[in-house]
């Protein structure tokens, strides 16, 4: 039971797919201009991740090694197409805002990464928990980035005006930078910094050390 719970909780902070493995960055940048898009994307990815992990895990003993990636991608791609169609049918405005990024869940390394690294080798129940945990870990980062960007970029949260804007007679001058992609990098970088200061074991060994001046002169 303890172990099961770990599958679910580890990916939240301890092994967060975005903050530790730096996966799924593209969508984390693209859809976090507001909290509502971030929420929809987080939900869509979590559902796809859970369903694909469960499917792949349930047929894991019969996936031939030589074609395993293609089998995984086929399953993920079908789920993503259906998810995209569902959004277009029932959340049309939102799907227009997310444009191609729902479709791009297919190429999100996070989904394939969990299928390849976990679901392929583990029974259904742990795979489901692991997928759900990773989906929630991704969602957590997206929601934080989305909330910061919408709050400081538009003075609102979920479209509800928190800070009155200057143009409407308030005091808040929106930071236009927050609506641009680089701000997501800054926020993500700061988040990773905070998490790694809190949990130093996440800091990676440098691959190359900086040469001292003497070494540089006489290699």
């Amino acid at each position, binding site marked *: 039971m303890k172990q099961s719970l770990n599958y679910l909780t580890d990916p939240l902070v301890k092994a967060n797919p975005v903050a530790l493995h730096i996966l799924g960055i593209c969508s984390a940048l693209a859809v976090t201009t507001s909290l509502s898009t971030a929420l929809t994307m987080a939900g869509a990815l979590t559902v796809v991740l859970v369903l694909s992990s469960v499917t792949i895990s349930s047929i894991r*003993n019969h996936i031939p090694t030589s074609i395993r990636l293609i089998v995984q991608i*086929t399953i993920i791609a079908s789920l993503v197409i259906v998810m995209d*169609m569902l959004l277009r049918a029932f959340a049309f405005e939102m799907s227009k805002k997310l444009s191609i990024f729902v479709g791009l869940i297919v190429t999100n390394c996070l989904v394939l990464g969990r299928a390849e690294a976990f679901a392929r080798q583990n029974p259904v129940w742990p795979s489901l928990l692991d997928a759900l945990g990773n989906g929630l870990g991704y969602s957590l980062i997206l929601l934080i980035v989305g909330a910061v960007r919408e709050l400081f970029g538009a003075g609102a949260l979920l479209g509800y005006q928190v800070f009155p804007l200057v143009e409407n007679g308030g005091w808040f001058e929106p930071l236009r930078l927050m609506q641009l992609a680089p701000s997501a990098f800054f926020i993500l970088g700061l988040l990773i910094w905070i998490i790694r200061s809190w949990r130093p074991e996440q800091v990676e060994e440098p691959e190359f050390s900086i040469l001292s001046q003497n070494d540089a002169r006489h290699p």
Partner: protein
Amino acid sequence: MSDLNPINWWRRLLALPNDNLTKTLVVAFLVAFIASIFVSIAAVTLRPYHLANLEAERQGRLAAMVAALPGMGDILTGAGVDDMEAHIIDLTSGEFATHIDPATFDQREAASDPTQSSPIPSEADVAGIKQRSDFAQVIILRKDGKLHLVVLPVRGIGYQSMLYAYLAIHADGNTIAGLTFYEQGETPGIGTRILEPEWLELWPGKQLVDKNGEVLISVVRGEAVGEFEVDGISGATRTSNGVSNMLHFWLGDYGFGPFLTRLRNGEV
């Protein structure tokens, strides 16, 4: 011994080692087959919702365009929407085709139905649409009983998708009142800049044809000069050209040309 029981056959298949060629092929086929059925069922079930959404969006765009046109808001609030009427015209003669009910006319279906459409000669097909319906819908807005604006549905190939747009023209049959796109699939962030209000605002007031009736309106590279030109979108040359070609086709002889000539001569 030939065992034809499918359950035994299935068990034997599952028992095969995973790198076995037969099993690889069967698994590949089954995964692809089940996935495609799953996607097909979703596509068919959700299609009515998609169409309803697109239709709602199309209506919304049209209403938004009509509301944004100068003076239109007053007319709509003052006289009600009775002054906005859809008509079907015969593209070849430019005359109203009163025998077709605008409410049941589906232009997209008409354009793909061989009995209701004609192929366009390739030298005239600048918009790249190959086939056009013999009849087309126009929306006529009247002010105090007098024709005020006509709205024409147009389409043409952009960079990677079919662009669907409404072109609104003043009663003189020559001055653009507005242009709006209601469906496209251009490159996000580049070709999709045709949707930006800043660019669409460049259109009102531009002239379509010169004194001899030759279509001159076009999207040019860089800065536009004069009343027939609109600034191109940098980085989206082929989308810009697509918009230009689309207008040339639909304003020409195979498009709404005959209708617009009648409009300019005051026959409508």
